[in-house]
Structures are given as C-alpha cells and as structure tokens.
C-alpha cells in the first residue's frame, strides 16, 4: 500500500469493525442477564453465547414442530379424559367442514395440519390444542341446526389455533428456561440431565395450557377474538356467520351448561358474545346466505348421530 490515506482508512475501518463486534457481544451478554433474571453462572453465559443466535424469548418463537409436540401432548390429555365418538362417516363430514374453514383461515397450514375429532359426551363443548388438534363434543353437535353453525363453531376453534391462544397461555418464565436449555445444547439429542430438565418444563407448559383450555377457560379477550375470527373466516368460506348467533341463542339462559365443564363455564356469557358477534357480522359487507343443499347434507350426516 503506497498511499498513506488508504492505510489510515483501512486502520480506521478495522477499528470500527472491532468496536462493532465488541458492542454486539456486550449487548448479547446484557440480554442473557436480563432474560434469566441474573441467575446464571459464568459457564451458563458462555454456553448460551456460543449459540446466541438461537436464543428466543417469547411464545411467538416456538417453532411449528415444538407447537406440534405441545399439541400432541395436550390432545393426549384430552383423549385420556374423554372417549372418542367412533363414527367414521360423521368424523369424515366434520373434517370436511373443518378443512373448508381452515383453508380460508389466517393460518391454513401447521406442522402436521388440522384434524377434527368428535368426543363421546353430552357435554356441550369444543376444544382446540396448539398445532391444529380440534375436538367437538357430540353434545355440541346435537345443538347445531345446520352446516353453517358447525362451520362457525369449528372456525372459532381454528381461530384459537391460528392466533396461538394456547401458546400464549404458557408462562413466560417457563419459556425462557426452556429456550435457555435448548440454546445451550448444540446437538438434537439431549443428555439425561438436560432431558430431565426440559421434560419438567414441558410438563409445566402443558399444565399452563390445560389449565386455561380445559379447566379455567381462555381469557375473555381470546374468546372475543376467536368469535371475530369465526365471523370473518366463515364468511370467506361461504358460510353464513349468523350460524354462530343461532348457536349462541340456544345457549341463552341454559342452566344445563352453566355448571361443569363446557363452552359456557369456560367462555364469557352467551348474551355478552351475541352482542359482539352481531356487531362483527354487520361489518361484513356481503354475508353469504344459508344454502338448502348444505343443510340437507348436514341433516343426512346427523342421522347417524341420533
């Protein structure tokens, strides 16, 4: 290099580069401290730094595959509590309605797709586990008058999946702990100690979801959001979203569902939802109407249920 200016420029450039490197490492270290509440040893920090680019911090960063494993386990819990209603024709029909709605939702594809199953109980309930495992009870099916209502109810459940309401109910501290362990391990096979820790967190994570999904019910705002998603998704599918109102109307003042588990222990009151759903429907510019052909195929499918 013969030009002194060029040498200076290269030197300065090098300095800027080193400063940038140092600053980014510093930021990483600070963030690790913040994320873990400072309860980490020096070796922990070192381990995490090695894989810093993989450190995640919120439910939104749970991968599709992890969501699938969470959904599988939540579904296994549900299917341990309830018997499956064995009726292949009806199950196939529910899956067709479900998939018609799914492809018009905000999230048509998940890791292993959406699957719908009927639970053999008179309880009036529907549940969706993360990743797309959707359950509807025989009791709730019996309340549906037509395909529109069934479509709207399934669209409500698909809305819970697409908006990740299940994953949102996982306590943040648990995710941070899990992400730290995952990031500290380079291989896909976990050593016994880490596997035990990760499985502990997995169990607690399932507990968080089961508590809000099965026991306590989702936060009201998630129920309203799922209703709103149901209206827009149903309309896009070609279903009359008034089907959701038809169903909610049957639930007003129904004391049989107020106790025990079910949509109405776990949801805001029917009256409360009807008002909001009505408003939502009025904002859809051209709502599809009901269709005789659909209603008659619904009735045909339901014959095997009664």
């Amino acid at each position, binding site marked *: 290099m013969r030009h002194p200016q060029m040498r200076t420029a290269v030197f300065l450039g090098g300095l800027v580069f080193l400063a940038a490197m140092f600053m980014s490492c510093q930021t990483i270290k600070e963030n690790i401290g913040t994320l873990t509440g400072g309860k980490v040893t020096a070796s922990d920090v070192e381990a995490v730094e090695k894989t810093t*680019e*993989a450190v*995640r911090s919120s439910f939104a960063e749970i*991968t*599709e*595959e*992890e969501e699938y*494993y969470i959904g*599988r*386990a939540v*579904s*296994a*819990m549900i*299917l*341990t509590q309830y018997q*499956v209603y064995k009726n292949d024709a009806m*199950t*196939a029909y529910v*899956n*067709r309605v479900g*998939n*018609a709605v799914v*492809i018009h939702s905000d999230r*048509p*594809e*998940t*890791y*292993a*797709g959406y*699957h*719908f*199953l009927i639970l053999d109980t008179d309880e009036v309930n529907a549940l969706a586990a993360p990743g797309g*495992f959707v359950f509807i009870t025989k009791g709730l099916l019996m309340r549906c008058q037509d*395909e529109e209502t069934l479509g709207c109810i399934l669209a409500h459940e698909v809305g819970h999946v697409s908006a990740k309401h299940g994953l949102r109910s996982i306590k943040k501290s648990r995710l941070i702990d*899990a992400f730290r362990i*995952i990031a500290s*391990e380079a291989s*896909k*096979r976990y050593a016994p100690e880490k*596997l035990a820790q*990760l*499985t502990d967190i*997995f*169990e607690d*994570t399932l507990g968080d979801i089961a508590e809000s999904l099965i026991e306590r019910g989702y936060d009201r705002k998630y129920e309203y959001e799922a209703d709103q998603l149901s209206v827009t998704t149903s*309309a*896009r*599918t*070609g*279903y009359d979203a008034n089907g959701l109102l038809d169903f909610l109307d049957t639930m007003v003042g129904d004391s049989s569902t107020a106790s025990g588990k079910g949509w109405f222990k776990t949801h805001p009151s029917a009256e409360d939802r009807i008002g909001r759903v009505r408003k939502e429907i009025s904002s*859809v*510019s*051209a*709502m*599809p*109407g009901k*269709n005789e*052909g*659909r209603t008659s*195929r619904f009735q045909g499918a339901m014959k095997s249920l009664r």
Partner: protein
Amino acid sequence: MNKASRFKLLLAGVAVVCVALLLAETLVVKVQSTFVRKEPKFYSSPTATLTAGESVTQLSSQAGWFKVRTSQGVEGWIHSSAVQTGKLKVASMDRSMQTAATADEVALAGKGFNRQVEDEYKSRNKGLNFAEVDRMLNIKVSPDELRRFLMDGKLAEFGGAR
C-alpha cells in the same frame, strides 16, 4: 447500434441479472409435509410433495401463495404458511447475514420439545392416550375430496362467498 450503446445494453443486462439473483428467494418448508400445487388453491391437484427442511426457489407471489420451482425442477404453487420466508439466496448474501437468520425453524428443526422429550414425558405419564392422537393424525381430507365438498355445498368461489 454503435459500440457505446451496445456496451450500455450489456451493462443493463448484467444489472437485470444481478437484481434477479438478489430477488430470487429460497423458501424453506417448515411443516412436516406439504404439496406443491398446480394452481394457487388448496384443492388444486398436487404436482409434488415436500417435507420439512426442503428448499424451493420462489418465482413469483400472489395473495398468500408463492409460485416455486423445486430442486427436481417441478413448478407449482405453495402456501406462505408452509414455508419460512426471508432467507435470501446464499449467492447474494454475505456470511454475517446468513448467521443472523439462524434463530429460525430450520436451524431449530428437531430441537427443543421434540420426540425425545415426548418419549421421556410418556415414560413418566404412562396412562396418556397418545395412540388415539396418532389415529387422529391419520384423518385427512384430500384436495380432490375438498374440491368436491366445496363445489357440492356451493362454498367459496363455487357459489356463496363474496
């Protein structure tokens, strides 16, 4: 055409190729398996099946769908919810930007809550009904079945929708 304008044309050509290379995006499949379809519709016939981690080249996009070419040279449409976007082609990126994008589905594939964690969880909770979950996963609606269902019911573009 004189020499100068021929040179300008050549330069323009090179620029177009460079821009095209920069824009040519590689999409990586993030779901267990998905179809490449003839048309940008879920009930359209599949032209290829892709599994998690496979990459395709994006050719164009349209309302939530990407037109892609697979490594086998098959062209078709894939839905945006099945792929990870935002990873530019290696040729157009420097290394620092590649590593910046590793906190993603592809880098984390098989990690975290995985089969091994599920197996450990199962061994701790023996009574759980995973068999029924596996049976549930086998219930599928084919594109053809879905198309007939929408058509018969006058749903979506077959009738009732806006």
